[in-house]
């Protein structure tokens, strides 16, 4: 039957024996080794002519189909998808929290026979994974779509924004949680911040840096901290809740427009840039502490949705030796805006100036952010900055390049007029621009130094 993934010789061998995946088989190798186990699907990688067998001791081993002397079917196993999920026992009167599944590590579960990961996202699943929620929230859940976060597009942002608005209008939850792959979670969080202009509760994006199939996964504690935020937050903004450090007890609530994934693998990969986090959550106490008084409060006037993103917008990173053709290409192909990640205070090489000038002249909005990530763009200090301003480029202030890109996409879906677009782009809409650069927006690296000074105690 289904032998997808196996190579030609393996398939012939298996078909002749009438064997399909998840059959229990007995294989004799040419050196006399006799193996009995369950035939598993062939993983995508590796040699497709090697059969993968799960032995009775739990180990998987590969048996080269070209070395098989004989093979026969001895039985079949039923593939179970985990055990029974018991019904949750809820504390009465709990605030409602709605979960939207969009894909990613956090909304998946392992099949222990095949090792395959499959999506799951019912309320029962969530309670089963995080039983503490029985005391925190009445959970409802749905899967909006199931897409790797690197495959998401601005259209997906719109779909999420649309659904969040609906849920707030119709079901009046205390907050909505969006389970999201971590790679582009920052972009989506920013997009929701712009599209959802007014909210009765927070939209909390949450993900996992360690897959949910491992006991050490950060998904359960992240979900718990996100739910505590959804229930207890006095603010109604788009935020990202993830581990604050390596420990499982402290979580930061980062503003969607300020947060960036700063590490490929650590649990505490998400950092607020040019600002401190909005709040923190502590476990097991389940307490939320807000760090500032400047935030959008829960609105009593319902949701204000201004949805839609212009797709003809680009985020371009400048690098030494960059050719002006790259800018020309965008202009020639009808792009309406671009954010260039320049160097330092907001610079690019001289050879790009004519192309940028042409872009602006043809009505393309060109914004300059900085690849320093931290700090504010200031194009008045050096000559190149002044030249860029002169040809019509706009400085992105202290916005993250990614936030600037998302914002420009959103702005250009609101207006076609470049001048108006520029004005809107430079207006603070969701705390993405601060006029003051506070010292603690850039945390010092005293971490290791403190320990070194302590003599590696």
């Amino acid at each position: 039957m289904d032998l997808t993934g196996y190579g030609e010789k393996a398939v012939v061998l298996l078909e002749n024996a009438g064997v399909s995946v998840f059959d229990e088989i007995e294989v004799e190798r040419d050196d006399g080794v006799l193996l009995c186990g369950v035939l598993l699907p062939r993983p995508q990688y590796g040699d497709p002519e090697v059969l993968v067998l799960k032995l009775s001791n739990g180990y998987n081993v590969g048996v080269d189909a070209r070395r098989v002397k004989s093979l026969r079917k001895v039985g079949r196993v039923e593939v179970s998808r985990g055990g029974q999920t018991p019904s949750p026992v809820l504390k009465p009167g709990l605030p409602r929290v709605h979960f939207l599944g969009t894909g990613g590590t956090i909304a998946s579960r392992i099949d222990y026979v095949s090792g395959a990961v499959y999506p799951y996202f019912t309320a029962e699943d969530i309670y089963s994974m995080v039983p503490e929620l029985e005391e925190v929230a009445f959970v409802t859940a749905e899967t909006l779509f199931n897409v790797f976060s690197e495959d998401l597009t601005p259209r997906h942002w719109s779909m999420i924004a649309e659904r969040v608005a609906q849920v707030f209008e119709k079901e009046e939850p205390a907050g909505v949680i969006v389970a999201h792959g971590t790679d582009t979670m920052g972009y989506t969080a920013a997009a929701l911040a712009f599209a959802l202009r007014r909210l009765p509760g927070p939209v909390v994006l949450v993900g996992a840096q360690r897959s949910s199939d491992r006991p050490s996964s950060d998904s359960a504690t992240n979900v718990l901290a996100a739910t505590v935020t959804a229930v207890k937050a006095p603010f109604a903004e788009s935020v990202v809740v993830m581990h604050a450090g390596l420990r499982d007890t402290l979580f930061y609530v980062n503003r969607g427009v300020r947060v960036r994934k700063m590490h490929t693998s650590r649990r505490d990969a998400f950092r607020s840039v040019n600002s401190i986090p909005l709040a923190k959550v502590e476990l097991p106490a389940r307490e939320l502490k807000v760090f500032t008084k400047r935030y959008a409060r829960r609105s009593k006037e319902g949701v204000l949705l201004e949805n839609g993103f212009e797709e003809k917008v680009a985020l371009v990173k400048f690098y030494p030796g960059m050719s002006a053709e790259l800018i020309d290409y965008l202009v020639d192909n009808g792009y309406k805006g671009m954010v260039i990640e320049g160097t330092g205070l907001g610079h690019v090489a001289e050879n790009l100036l004519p192309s940028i000038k042409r872009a602006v002249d043809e009505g393309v909005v060109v914004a300059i952010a900085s690849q320093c990530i931290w700090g504010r763009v200031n194009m008045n200090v050096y000559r190149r900055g002044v030249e860029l301003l002169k040809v019509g480029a706009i400085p992105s202030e202290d916005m993250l390049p990614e936030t600037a890109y998302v914002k420009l996409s959103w702005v250009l879906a609101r207006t076609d007029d470049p001048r108006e677009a520029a004005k809107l782009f430079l207006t603070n809409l969701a705390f993405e621009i601060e006029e003051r650069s506070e010292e603690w927006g850039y945390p010092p690296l005293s971490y290791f130094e403190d320990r070194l000074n302590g003599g590696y105690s």
Partner: protein
Amino acid sequence: MSVKVGIEIHQMLDTKHKLFCNCPTELRRDGPHSEFRRWLRLARSELGELDPAAVFEYSKGKMFLYEAYFDSTCLVEMDEEPPHQLNPEALETAILVSLALNCKVVDEVHVMRKIVIDGSNTTGFQRTALIGLNGHVDVGGKKVPINTVCLEEDAARKMEEREREVVYRLDRLGIPLVEVTTAPVISNPEEAGLVALRIGQLLRMTGRVKRGLGTIRQDLNISVEGGARVEIKGVQELELIPRVVEYEVMRQKKLLEVGEELRKRGVGRGDLSTNVLDVSELFKDTSSRVARKALTSGGVALAVKLPGFARLLGVELQPGRRLGTEMADRARYWAEVGGIFHSDELPAYGISSEEVTAVRKALQCGELDAFVLVFEEKKRAIRALEAVVERAREALEGVPPETRGANPDGTTRFMRPMPGSARMYPETDIRPIPIETVMLERIRALIPEPPEVKYEKLVKVYGLNPEIAKRVLWSYRLDVFEKAVGEAGASPTVVASTLEGTLVELRRDGVPVHNITDEHLLELFKLLARGGLVKEAIPAVIKYLAENPDVEVEEAVKKLGLTPLSLEEAKEAVRRIVSRMSDVIKERGEAAFSTVMGATMRELRGRVDGGLLSKLVREEVLKVIKGSG
């Protein structure tokens, strides 16, 4: 009555790097640089599939505190970065071990995750891969099948267990181990010892494994006909294996007898109820300190009747360990109580015979009935007695299957219920690794010589007599012998008698020879070969090193004043002694030789070679005799 024993040997490999990252494979003595706290968890729906012990541990909700080092542990051990590729050096060693044990190697290696939720792995699973299977090792003419050879990562080191958290250190996590599993075909204690020795020796002969305390660990599974499979974990010393097997066989036989006696007495499962009785009132004026302490701090005295168990709780199952001890172990495990008291051991510990009689009366105990008492906080006390009754019920069946831990004296204690089948699933962060025939052939050339060839060599090349040769062949330190006579160039006879004689004698005398490392010995033999030490000084030097393991060998020799004398110095010293004793010599002639030799030995032993000394004394004595004649 037939006995079946299987052995599982875990041996740390001496690779440069860990199994899944490039950190060194060294344990540290200095304090950690950083620490962090974590939980492990499983979806509730998955708990049902796990073994009860793991779920029980898990339900305590403890946190894990991990200790890390900036310069020798990395994000991989912290579970903050996916594993790197499987260490090729470790894979090669695991294949070498497989081939040396006549195993067949798999065509493609799949790394698995084995769920472990006691916190000893930051990930919540141990990574392990099956490398070889269907092998055998020959021991005393018997072919003992080797079921599997696996390559796995070692767990973190448990440093401390606190009330709310367990402290683990990450230095050991990820060090490669090979796990060798024999079929359960070993039929007596001596054979178990020999099989473990042969496998351990073979592992060392590859030259790629770590040595010293804690680098090899044996688990045994033992079942006696009519009994049950019992797993014994963590036997750290090879010498202990026969005794552990012997004691476990003894325990299972005794338990079967107890079961038989209970049947004779007509005790059934239904007779054993967990109806506990609060007897606090009876201990109002007790002189038992344990009881008083519990009662004054809000605890209670609870008792439970065990019908038909009189005089059986005190039956000795292993030296110093009774059925009552096993019940206490269970109570400690499931209820974390300090201990229990059973009627076979009372009155004692400050509990008076009046109190015993009163408890018996309250429980309506007949002559054949026993009881168990516990002084504790009420909830815990109830849980403790439930565990006791459960163990009593199991006694009706004879031997409960369980996991036990080895004590240093060879007896065992309850550790936890037998784990269910391990839950394993693929480590999707590591791609399957194909094993090429070329690679196998290259590794095959590295297999150490088989014992027969070694034996021939010991007799013919090294000139050992067959008796000594056999002992060296069966020595765990066979590889040290080969290095000492090969690289170091020491005398085979002296090396053999040091390894197989001196060390054993010193141990018998209570010298802590387990502190002696292979490095100590090799240094010692090198020094001997260079003439920096005479063989008579060896016992004293080893004794000193055993007591001061951080001291260098040469330093020890100096400290003991055992630096050898030059020929001139030796002659001069002998001349001095002989002239001092010239009167005796003149008087008794050659008959005085042994007296003079004795005196010389007292002064120069260990600083001059014995043979040479004897020759010098003889010469000088003869001179004196001649001079006087």
